[in-house]
């Protein structure tokens, strides 16, 4: 005959075991959902920078006077150029997400990926010479740069086109207006130019697709020149106030 207090202890242990099992299952499910959410947002973390922190120049916008001014920051950046460009833009946008920013932007990852493409851009076609046919009847592709009448040419040898793929979550939350959108683009262009001078031209995509405007105003379909966009550069920007 099992004594009463032993039965109570036994059932208490059973309840504890079942409770822990349920907690474990719930915790596991939450972990899975968190990982799935991260995958959906494509917030893949950048490669951990292996280099020491270095001085970079961020060209920071100011909504109050429509100006862009350079600012130095100590940041550890990846060595690989594509990741380096992405990290630069992420740091720039993170700066704008700080409280009291002069050009307030929503927090969160802005860039899904940056692709650096060597210039000139050339198209490819199949080699039509009869001797080029490979086994199975396939023909290799050959560049058509020499026959393209209007290729996108570099200004200097080694010039590159940066294709910046923005997250739609960032674009959809971006403030709307000619000035605020233009400042964001100019800030990105100037920061890339200051730190990665081989980038000569920039194109923007949103979730891998071409999009007409950033938030209803600034054109995202054109190719932008990467250049010094600070307010003192050229005659592009001037301020007059009463």
């Amino acid at each position: 005959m099992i004594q009463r207090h032993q039965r109570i202890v036994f059932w208490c242990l059973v309840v504890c075991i079942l409770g822990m099992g349920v907690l474990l299952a719930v915790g596991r499910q939450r972990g899975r959902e968190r990982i799935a959410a991260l995958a959906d947002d494509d917030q893949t973390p950048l490669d951990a920078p292996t280099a020491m922190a270095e001085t970079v120049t961020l060209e920071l916008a100011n909504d109050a006077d429509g100006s862009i001014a350079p600012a130095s920051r100590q940041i550890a950046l990846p060595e690989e150029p594509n990741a380096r460009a992405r990290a630069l833009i992420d740091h720039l946008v993170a700066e704008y997400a700080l409280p009291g920013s002069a050009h307030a932007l929503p927090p969160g990852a802005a860039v899904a990926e940056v692709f650096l493409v060597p210039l000139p851009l050339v198209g490819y076609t199949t080699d039509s010479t009869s001797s080029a046919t490979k086994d199975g009847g396939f023909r290799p592709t050959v560049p058509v740069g020499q026959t393209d009448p209007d290729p996108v040419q570099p200004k200097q040898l080694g010039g590159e086109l940066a294709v910046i793929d923005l997250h739609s979550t960032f674009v959809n939350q971006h403030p709307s207006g000619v000035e605020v959108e233009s400042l964001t683009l100019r800030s990105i262009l100037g920061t890339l130019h200051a730190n990665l001078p081989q980038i000569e031209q920039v194109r923007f995509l949103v979730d891998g697709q071409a999009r007409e405007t950033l938030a209803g105003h600034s054109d995202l379909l054109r190719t932008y020149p990467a250049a010094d966009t600070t307010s003192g550069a050229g005659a592009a920007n001037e301020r007059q106030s009463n």
Partner: protein
Amino acid sequence: MIVLDPAHGGVDSGSQISETTVEKNVTLALAFRLRSLLTARGFSVVMTREEDASAVPNAAGSALTLDDRAGIANHAHAAACLVLHATRSGNGVHLYRSELEASEGQASLVPWLTAQAAWIPQSQHLESQMAAAFSRSGVGLVASTASVRPIDSLTCPALVVELAPSGDDADSINDTDYQQKVALALAGALVFWQNQVQPPARLSPPAIVAVGQATTSDAAGVQP
């Protein structure tokens, strides 16, 4: 002739300026105000929309695209084209011209996406006159360049005029005195401007001589 393009309209509300104000209504209100002042000064004014949602002529139900707006402006052969926008960021007026590099003249065949290039010097001149007018009227001004469609496709001296609040309160953008002050500065600048506008030089078309047709082209008087 002056073309006013109150940006946005219909389902495209533009930016949310305050809880009760959207951009499309501010641009239309400013356009009506400016049209009255310009008409009183003897200008003919063409507006790309006069109601919330403008439709393509002879195609009821089709919303006006940005290219349609550029088409209306280009057919008007206007002395100036003003694309009106509004925003809650910054203060005063933001004035933008196209980011295109100026071309030497207007080619016989004008690319749609860079048609403004031939008019850049004129647009710069208009911008400096407007900047002076705003300075005189005491309205804060930021002048710069921007790539905002459809300005690159316009064949007239063209500027984007973005109205921002006069102070910290976003709703101050609806203040009638403030809008009137801005409209008066714009109208005053356009009065000075009307006698200075000069169309760009027309570039002669490049000769296209196909192999085997050189004799025919020469006979037709095609100059290289």
